[in-house]
């Protein structure tokens, strides 16, 4: 802070000297600026399309403006409303499930005393994170197929009499997606909580042991409060991502029978924008998503500010 004030007070000649001194940095910074402008900021200019009836032939400059017409179409479209519902519901369900599981797993793994077992379990737990969604959906498809392990177990346990076709039951799709997310990310997400747990002062546990606290008490009164700031900041970071959590698995597993519950905003953009070549409508839906995401981040940040928690910006 002090430094920047000083810099402000610097004489013009000193600034010029700095410019010369830092010319290499400035040149590279400019190169990165150009790169950033091209790949991140110019596409924002494409948002104009959402207010046009964009035709590739006429281009961005000469297409007819239709005002909010595309947005009006979106909000009158029953499919789009359903798609918003699906995205939000799956996003929230995934967020809550993966969050709770990661925290639970981190705390319980921390209670495993054998170092070898702990290390081994942790290494195994990361594995699914490194597999692509293509592989995960393939694996999931095998496990849930007619002669897959899940149907086999359920039939053997006499819970069901004949195999269920899991991917044609709309009610089961959201839980399947949530489970797939838990399977893939629990170990990975737990890393940061485990790191947070290691930084808790060990003397707290010793003091609690002397007071006769059992394991549950230690978890409840020391571990959980200890990782609370980490939990809060990760929650904040992830709230903005709720809408982003809905593409790959839904796209790969969705089929005609469950389209009503599996299609998300991203899939809607893809169908209208790419398959139907209605660029304007696809862009409008994309803008809607971006705007909602930003609103979510700002709200989350505001809530954090008010409750005195750490915040993102």
């Amino acid at each position, binding site marked *: 802070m002090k430094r920047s004030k000083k810099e402000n007070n610097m004489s013009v000649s000193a600034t010029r000297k700095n410019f010369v001194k830092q010319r*290499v940095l400035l040149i590279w910074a400019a190169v990165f600026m150009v790169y*950033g402008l091209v790949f991140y900021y110019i596409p*924002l200019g494409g948002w104009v399309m959402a207010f046009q009836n964009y035709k590739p032939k006429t281009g961005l400059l000469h297409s007819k403006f239709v005002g909010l017409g595309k947005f009006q179409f979106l909000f009158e479209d029953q499919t789009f409303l359903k798609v918003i519902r699906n995205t939000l519901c799956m996003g929230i369900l995934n967020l809550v499930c993966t969050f709770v599981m990661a925290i639970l797993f981190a705390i319980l793994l921390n*209670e495993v005393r054998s170092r070898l*077992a702990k290390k081994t379990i942790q290494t195994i737990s990361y594995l699914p994170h490194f*597999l692509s969604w293509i592989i995960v959906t393939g694996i999931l498809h095998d496990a849930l197929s007619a002669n897959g392990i899940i149907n086999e177990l359920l039939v053997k346990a006499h819970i069901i009499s004949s195999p269920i076709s899991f991917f044609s039951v709309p009610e089961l799709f959201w839980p399947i997606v949530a489970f797939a997310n838990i399977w893939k990310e629990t170990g990975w997400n737990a890393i940061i909580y485990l790191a947070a747990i290691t930084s808790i002062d060990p003397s707290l546990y010793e003091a609690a042991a002397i007071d006769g606290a*059992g394991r549950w008490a230690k978890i409840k009164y020391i571990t959980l409060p200890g990782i609370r700031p980490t939990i809060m900041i990760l929650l904040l970071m992830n709230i903005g991502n709720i809408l982003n959590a809905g593409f790959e698995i839904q796209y790969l597993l969705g089929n005609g029978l469950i389209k009503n519950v599996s299609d998300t905003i991203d899939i809607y953009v893809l169908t209208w924008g790419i398959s139907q070549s209605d660029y304007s409508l696809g862009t409008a839906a994309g803008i809607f998503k*971006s705007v909602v995401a930003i609103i979510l981040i700002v709200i989350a940040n505001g809530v954090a500010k008010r409750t005195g928690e750490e915040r993102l910006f």
Partner: protein
Amino acid sequence: MENKENLELEMDISQESEITEPVVLSKGVKSKKKGITADTLFVICNTIFMILFVVITLYPVLNTVALSFNDGTDAVRGGIHLIPRKFSIKNYTVVLHMQNIITGAIVTVARTVIGTLLALVANALLAYIISRKEFLFKSQLSLFWVITMYVNGGLIPVLLLYKTLGLTNSFWVYVIPGMVSAFNVLVLRTYMQGLPEALEDAAKIDGAGYMTIFVKVISPLCKPVYATVALFVAVGQWNSWFDAMIYNRMKTEYTTLQYELMKLLSSVMQQSGSATSVNAANVSTVTPVTVRSAATVITMLPIICLYPFLQRYFVAGLTIGGVKG
């Protein structure tokens, strides 16, 4: 299967034997029998939880491996768990004779290597610039990149841009657009800011310029965090398929392994496990399911072999990344 369970049991025994000791030792202090039984119950439940967790995590992966080594028509009967019933390597021969899989593998390796190198150099250089305390536009440049983490043009405008730039139907679409990532830059910057300034000052007195300091002083110190970022980028490159589908759908020579795997997956899903053989390959004992399993194993093999050795890097990276940007 038996072997694995034994292994887990052993793990679990060694774990408990170690646990009982401290509990017994602290008995004198606590002298509350109730507390000890509750703790024992906790250990038992926790052990069961961990075993379940490991089984659920590993089973589907091992099952895919078993399927990939099983005869196709035989696999349709179901009931294959961790060991192939009718052993066969035909699935692999079929996969390795698919031209698109071979092309896909080459492209995937190329994009992973080139993409990771480019991204690493670009992210490190940008992070270096932003981490210089005296840099004139430090905060402006940071803000410029942080914004890109939250706002983006979306699929359609990006597609049009790539078309205009001639990036569609080309290999470069895999490595150029995603080169700089604000998140990775922040991770690198945080690390660089934590380095001791004394070393740099010594180099400055010797008359070293910014680039010399970056290459000769900062970069050697940043090896661990470079490894982390390289790992993140490499895994992302290896696993991505969406860009191949959207930008290079028409160009079979730029197809990627994951995208080819996706095509196999959807062919399996459409037939939902029926026993139709892959006629094109003229082999009657493979089915889409087993062929896909073999392709899956090939695709995940490099990652499974490498990731346990790179653990410390990504753990370190995540912890730095978790720190406020």
